[in-house]
Every structure is written in C-alpha cells, then in structure tokens.
C-alpha cells in the first residue's frame, strides 16, 4: 500500500471523540473509542453499535450481459438472486484461491423497477484494486461496464438488537418487513437517498447503509443522537473483529486469502458448483477428492490467549496455524480458528496451541461460537 493512508469523511469526528486510530488496508480507521473494545462489543450485542465502514469498496456492474458476466466469475449463481437481495460469494483464481469475498447485490433504479437489473459488489478495502483488475481481465466480449463508486457512496453499519428501532425513527421506509439479506431504497429524514441493506458483519440483526458521501457526518450524528436513549455506541475495528469472529465469519487475510479456497474455509453456502465459473474445476476437484486442510474452531483448555499465526500441534507434530484467536467477550472463553488436516478435524479432538514457545492444551469445538440472532 503505497503513500499516505487514506481517511474517511468521519476522520475528524473520530479524532475529536477519542478514537485510537490504526492503519487498516491503506485506511486510517478507528480501532476503538474511549470506552474500549469490550464495551463496544457488548453494546452491539445488547443494544446497538455504529461502525464507519467507508473503507469498503463498492463496484457497480451494469450492462445487458451483467448477469452472465458475473456468473462466469463469481462462485455463487447470481441468477438465483431475487431483485433487491444480496448474497455472500467469492471471487476466485483458477486454482480456487480467493481473490475476495464480496457481497453481491441485485438492484434496480427504483424499488418497483422490473427493468434491467444492475449489480453492486461490496469488497474488502485491501482487495479493491486487484479484484477490479481481475474482473476487468474477464470482461472479454461481454456487454458490461464496471464502475468503482466507492468515492461517491458512503457506507455505515448500524448493528444490534435495537438497530431497527433506531433507524425506524429516521426513515419512513418499513424496515421491519425487510428480510435478512434484503435491501430497499428510501430516504433518511426525507432528504438523504439511502439504500438500506439488512446485512452486517457482527452476527446481530442490523443494517448497512449506502448514501451520498457528502451526508456522512450528518447521518452518523443523527443515528448517534436517535440511538442515545437506548445506549448506541460508536464501535471500532477491534469490536468489529471480535463480533465477526464469534459469529464465525471469515476475515480476508486471516481465514481467507489466495492460499485458501472456499472449500477449505467451509464456505459452501457461497458456492454454486453446478454452474461454470473461474476456479470451479479446482473447487470441484477438492469437493470430490478432499482437501489437505480445513478450517476449524477451537477452545483453549489451558487458559491463555491464542493469536493469529500461532502453531497448532497434534500428537507432538506441527499440523497447522491459528488464523484468528482471542478472548471472546460474549462467551467469556478463549477461542480460535485454525486450519488443520481434515483427519483430526472432529469435535472434541485434543490439540495444542504453541503460545510463546509453550504448547497449551485446546480442543476442537463447533463454530460459530455465537449463533447469530437472526438464525435462531
């Protein structure tokens, strides 16, 4: 990532409100505010958390062949997308390694429109350029245009059991009826054209909002004001990481990367192996013949904090590596995710995590560690 880190429109607000900043994927983002990551995590699970996620990259895909173009590229069958819904998918290399794991939205100009759909891909900040290059390399003769709209569109996430109630004070759109992964056009206080998406990266009910960048601070402050009575808190990247981790959601650069495939990462819900796409042959082969490693969850039996990069040992042999590990605020347990050979990946299996040169006992446990509320 060359040059100075970029700043979102809320940078000054974050600084003014006691945020500790960190450089993440080329952006200077709040890692926590004054109350600390644990408080922000609990606020999101119990009431609501507000996240600046404008570092995310948004790519619009338009054209008469947008659907068939995306379908030869994305692992998920976009023909299955109903208008105004989103689905999690991967974008792969030919060997099945992951370029990025976007959410793909099927949209239209207005809520009633039956006209030509267009698509919005929301990607990781770190991957925007390489993913866009990979997508452009596969345009061939498709009638399609790709446009990076990240500059024009601001992105915030309001997450938690009270998110619906708070946002409903700011819009006349009926958000309560919006299903998980549904999206609807509307306005905030009859002024700000907004796309409301019932999605998120926390394991809680909640929304991700897309609106014109010039309203960033206004929207942010109005949500905090309306949410104050129920105890909404601005939340930083540390809380975002612990929330997604407990909910079993992968993070690019940790659980997924060009070196891992969606099969190894147990992301089968992102795959439509019946249709052709870049990387499908490699993934089909893995599905039929098996893989050499698979992603598991584990809990420390000896108290200690597992972290990214620590070695996993089984019967005295190094067998894998921790992708993410931490103290899990909602369960009070020390948990991790790791890649291990499928042969030892059964529930209750005893493994060891090497923490500061000392092997510590752990055992394989089910994921997610925290069952998302919208699933129960």
């Amino acid at each position, binding site marked *: 990532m060359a040059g100075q880190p970029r700043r979102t429109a809320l940078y000054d607000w974050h600084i003014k409100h006691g945020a500790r900043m960190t450089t993440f994927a080329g952006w200077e983002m709040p890692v926590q505010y004054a109350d*600390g990551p644990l408080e922000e995590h609990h606020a999101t699970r119990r009431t609501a958390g507000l996240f600046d996620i404008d570092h995310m990259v948004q790519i619009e895909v338009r054209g008469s062949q947008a659907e068939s173009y995306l379908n030869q590229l994305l692992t998920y069958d976009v023909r299955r997308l109903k208008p105004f819904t989103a689905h999690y998918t991967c974008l792969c290399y030919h060997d099945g390694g992951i370029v990025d794991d976007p959410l793909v939205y099927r949209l239209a100009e207005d809520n009633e429109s039956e006209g030509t759909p267009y698509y919005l891909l929301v990607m990781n900040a770190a991957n925007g350029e390489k993913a866009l290059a990979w997508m452009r390399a596969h345009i061939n003769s498709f009638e399609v245009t790709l446009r990076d709209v990240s500059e024009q569109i601001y992105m915030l996430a309001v997450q938690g059991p009270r998110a619906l109630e708070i946002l409903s004070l700011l819009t006349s759109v009926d958000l309560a009826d919006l299903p998980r992964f549904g999206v609807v056009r509307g306005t905030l206080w009859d002024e700000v054209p907004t796309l409301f998406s019932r999605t998120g990266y926390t394991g809680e009910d909640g929304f991700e909002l897309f609106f014109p960048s010039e309203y960033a601070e206004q929207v942010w402050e109005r949500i905090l004001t309306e949410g104050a009575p129920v105890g909404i808190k601005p939340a930083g990247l*540390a809380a975002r990481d*612990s929330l997604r981790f407990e909910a079993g959601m992968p993070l690019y650069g940790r659980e997924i990367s060009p070196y891992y495939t969606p099969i190894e990462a147990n992301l089968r819900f992102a795959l439509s192996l019946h249709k052709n796409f870049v990387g499908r042959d490699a993934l089909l082969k893995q599905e039929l013949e098996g893989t050499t490693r698979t992603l598991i969850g584990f809990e420390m039996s000896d108290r*200690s*904090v597992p972290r990214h990069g620590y070695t996993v040992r089984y019967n005295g042999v190094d067998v894998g590596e921790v992708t993410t590990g931490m103290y899990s605020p909602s369960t009070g347990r*020390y948990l991790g995710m790791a890649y291990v050979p499928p042969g030892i990946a059964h529930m209750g299996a005893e493994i060891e995590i090497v923490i*500061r040169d000392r092997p510590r006992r752990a055992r394989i446990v089910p994921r997610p560690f925290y069952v998302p509320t919208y699933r129960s």
Partner: protein
Amino acid sequence: MKLDANARYTESHEWVRLEGDAMVCGITDHAQEELSDVVYVELPEVGASFNRGDQFGVIESVKAASDLYMPVSGEILAVNQELLNSPELVNKDPYGKGWMIKIKPSNPAEWDSLLTPEEYEKSVTGA
C-alpha cells in the same frame, strides 16, 4: 495519567509500593491505558525467585501480549489470584485491586534506584 504518590516506578511501566518488609507490584495507569482492555494475566508461582529485570509474567490485552518485568530482585510471596478470573481489574484499578505480585526483596536497596512519580511521568511524557 494517574500516579500513586507513594509508589516507585520502572521504565517498563511497573509500579512498586512498600508494604512492611515486602513490596507490592503492578502496572501503571498509563500502561493499562496503552494496552487497552486486558483479557488475560499470567503470574508466577509463589516461592519463585527472580532477579531485577527478569520476566515474571505476561499480560494480554485485546490488542497484544506484553511481558511483565521484576522491578526488584526477590522471591514471590503472593500473587493476585483474582486477576485470573477478572483481568479487567488491571484497567479499573491499576494501583489497587489490579496489583499483581508481592515480593520479598533480596536487595531492598534497589528501591532507591527506582523512578520517583515525577521521574516516571517525565519518562512517559518526554517533558
């Protein structure tokens, strides 16, 4: 930054206080703030002996793991067992309930070479 006027300090951000013939040790308010939320503390066995500057334990926050260093040479008389289940006490009360070890110093004169509150404050703020 809060300081305990009765304590002495190290450049590695431990504080020490005299308690009769023993010395009590923890980490400073500045250190806990830098660490952010503490989620795990590993302390030595009672009876273990260390030299000044030896690592006696580990503290882990949401952010990272850091080593804890002996401010003076001596034997561990007691450790704060409460921190095993409530590591957040280090954040809430670093000079009180967040104490870590009680030391029987083998060379009490080392106390005199520790930083005074004013010296420690200077070393942190660079003023």
